[in-house]
C-alpha cells in the first residue's frame, strides 16, 4: 500500500516527464529557430516545475523543500530571459523565419 503523498509525487513526476519528452521532440521536428525556441522555452519550464513540485510533495515541510521552491522560482525567471537572449541574437544576426510551405532546415 503506497501512501497518498507518494501517489501525488508519482503523478506529478509522470506529467513533468511528458513535457520534458515533448520539448526535445519539438526541438527536432519544428522547422526553424524561432519555433524551436517556443518548444524549448515553454515545455521545459513546465516540465521542470512539475518534477520539482513532485519532489517538494515527497520532501514535506523542510529547508530542502524551500530550496527546491527557490529553484523553481529561479528557473521561472531565468528560462524566458535566456530564451529571449538567444532569440534576440538570432534576430540581429538576421536568421530566416520559416513561413508555411517552405522547405524545412
Amino acid at each position, binding site marked *: 500500500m503506497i501512501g497518498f503523498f*507518494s501517489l501525488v*509525487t*508519482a503523478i506529478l*513526476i509522470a506529467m513533468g*516527464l511528458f513535457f*520534458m*519528452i515533448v*520539448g*526535445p*521532440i519539438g*526541438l*527536432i521536428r519544428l522547422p526553424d*529557430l524561432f519555433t*524551436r*525556441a517556443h518548444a*524549448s522555452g515553454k515545455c*521545459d519550464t513546465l516540465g*521542470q516545475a512539475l*518534477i*520539482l513540485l513532485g*519532489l517538494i510533495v*515527497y520532501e514535506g515541510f523542510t529547508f*530542502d523543500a524551500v*530550496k*527546491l521552491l*527557490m*529553484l523553481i522560482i*529561479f*528557473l521561472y525567471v*531565468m*528560462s524566458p*530571459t*535566456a*530564451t529571449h*537572449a*538567444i532569440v*534576440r*541574437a*538570432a534576430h*540581429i*544576426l538576421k*536568421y530566416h523565419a520559416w513561413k508555411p510551405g517552405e522547405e524545412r*532546415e
Partner: protein
Amino acid sequence: MIDLFTATGLVLICTLFLCLYRVIVGPGACNRLIAANTIGTKIILLLVLVGYIYGRNLFLDIALAYAMINFLATLAIAKYLEKGCIC
C-alpha cells in the same frame, strides 16, 4: 520511491540525447546554443534527482549554483554572438 527517481533519471538521459542531435546537426550557432541551454536545464533536474537517489541534500546546493552558472553562460554566449565581444 528510489526506483521511480532512477527511472526518471534514465528517461531524462534519453531525452538528453535527442537534444544532442540538435547540437551536432543544427544549422548555425543559435540553434546549437538553444539546444545546449535545454541540455543544461535538464542537467539541473538530474543533479537534484541524483541527490535524492543517494540521500545527500548537498546536491541541491550544487543544482542551485549550476542553474545560475548555466543562465550566465547562455547570456554571455548570446551576447558574444550578438556583438562579437563580451563587454
